[in-house]
């Protein structure tokens, strides 16, 4: 009974729930913005890595390797606490989105590249033989097929980005985790933290099961 009162105190949960929900909203704002920007950036990086002129593919590869190596927390702290020393000052929200997007686009680029490379060469040749421009070949023929292949790993990446938004609390962003820790301090009870954990699980569990199902559906299918 005591344990329940400590870790799952219903009155405290009810009291702090609006706070947690406002935190969830911030988490979603950071997450969705970073996911969208990461998708666009990742697709761009994948295309210039595969088809860029001269040294561009090399630089794209360097970018991708660096941002897949750097710990997100380190990057976030650099963006928020170090960049002001050179006069670049971002709000907590922008800092979080920038850091998440930089990293997410590096991972997304590799996912898109793998998807494009999985398309049989004959699809490129048939498009070229018909006279399609490089742009139309990509938009009408290659990407629609590649995107089907990359939906499971992209969804996986979305999950990671949504989880990583919790790091934004270290730059004083009032996200779900930050609100929970604050509520915990105010009420002198860890229940809000448990509530936050449950909200994270409720948010991400469906995505996790969707990925598993997608992987089963697309994974077994071998292309010629």
């Amino acid at each position, binding site marked *: 009974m005591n344990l329940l009162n400590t870790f799952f105190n219903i009155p405290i949960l009810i009291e702090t729930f609006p706070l947690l929900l406002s935190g969830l909203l911030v988490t979603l704002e950071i997450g969705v913005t970073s996911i969208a920007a990461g998708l666009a950036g990742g697709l761009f990086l994948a295309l210039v890595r595969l088809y860029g002129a001269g040294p561009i593919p090399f630089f794209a590869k360097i970018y991708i390797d660096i941002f897949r190596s750097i710990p997100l927390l380190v990057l976030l702290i650099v963006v928020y606490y170090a960049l002001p020393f050179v006069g670049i000052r971002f709000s907590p929200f922008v800092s979080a989105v920038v850091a998440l997007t930089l990293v997410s686009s590096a991972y997304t680029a590799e996912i898109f590249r793998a998807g494009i490379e999985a398309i049989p060469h*004959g699809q490129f040749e*048939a498009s*070229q033989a*018909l*006279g*399609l421009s490089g742009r139309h070949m990509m938009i009408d023929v290659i990407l629609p097929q590649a995107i089907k292949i990359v939906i499971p790993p992209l969804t996986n990446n979305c999950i990671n980005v949504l989880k990583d938004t919790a790091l934004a609390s270290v730059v004083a962003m009032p996200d779900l985790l930050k609100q929970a820790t604050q509520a915990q301090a105010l009420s002198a009870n860890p229940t809000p933290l448990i509530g936050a954990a449950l909200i994270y699980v409720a948010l991400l569990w469906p995505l996790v099961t969707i990925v598993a199902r997608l992987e089963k559906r697309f994974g077994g299918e071998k292309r010629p």
Partner: protein
Amino acid sequence: MSPLIQITNLKKAYGIFTVLHGIDLDIAEGEVVCVIGPSGSGKSTLIRCINRLEAFSSDSSIVVDGVTVGPGKALAKVRAEVGMVFQSFNLFPHLTVLKNVMLAPMRVRGNKPEDAERKARELLSRVGIAEQAEKYPGKLSGGQQQRVAIARALAMEPKVMLFDEPTSSLDPEMVGEVLDVMKRLAGTGVTMIVVTHEMGFARQVADRVIFMDGGRIIEQGTPGEIFDNPKEERTRGFLRAVLNH
């Protein structure tokens, strides 16, 4: 009249391995040319250079309908005029048969969707698959897929059609339906270059038969000359091998 396709000193190498040793070949408008020869002799490479799916040596020249085939802007023009049919069909699996045929006319020629669709349906009925228009390519037999591929290439109203062993990956019972479409096409005045192992087709349809070996044109002539009276020993050996199996 100058030839529709003018190939001069066509050379192609992969590293130190030379695939084409300076081929000279002119093809007249409306001509149907069949290219035969053993596997690895450079037949595919030759026709793939014509629309520059393969890059070739810079001292070689290919001119199609007055346009020099090379990297850059003019290439788009050449490719729009040159249709190609592949051994492995290469239909777009995520588009319906109809959309496969409509795509290039809309994107390359800028045709309106209604016009592209009308033309696509017309072509699909010409190759005998009008009823399959709404299906996806994966649901069709190999012979049907190859006929869609022919319709797709024809939708661009090309001056030249290139065929790279169009029946080689088909089950035997489907070879005839594709060859029939090609025979009818040959009667319409389209210039055709057909790489094929179907000697019966070559004999019946070709204006000229070219025998290649080792990256060179060894002998060429009318079907009668090549099949009934080959001059070169290598041609005789090849024909003996393919006709007596």
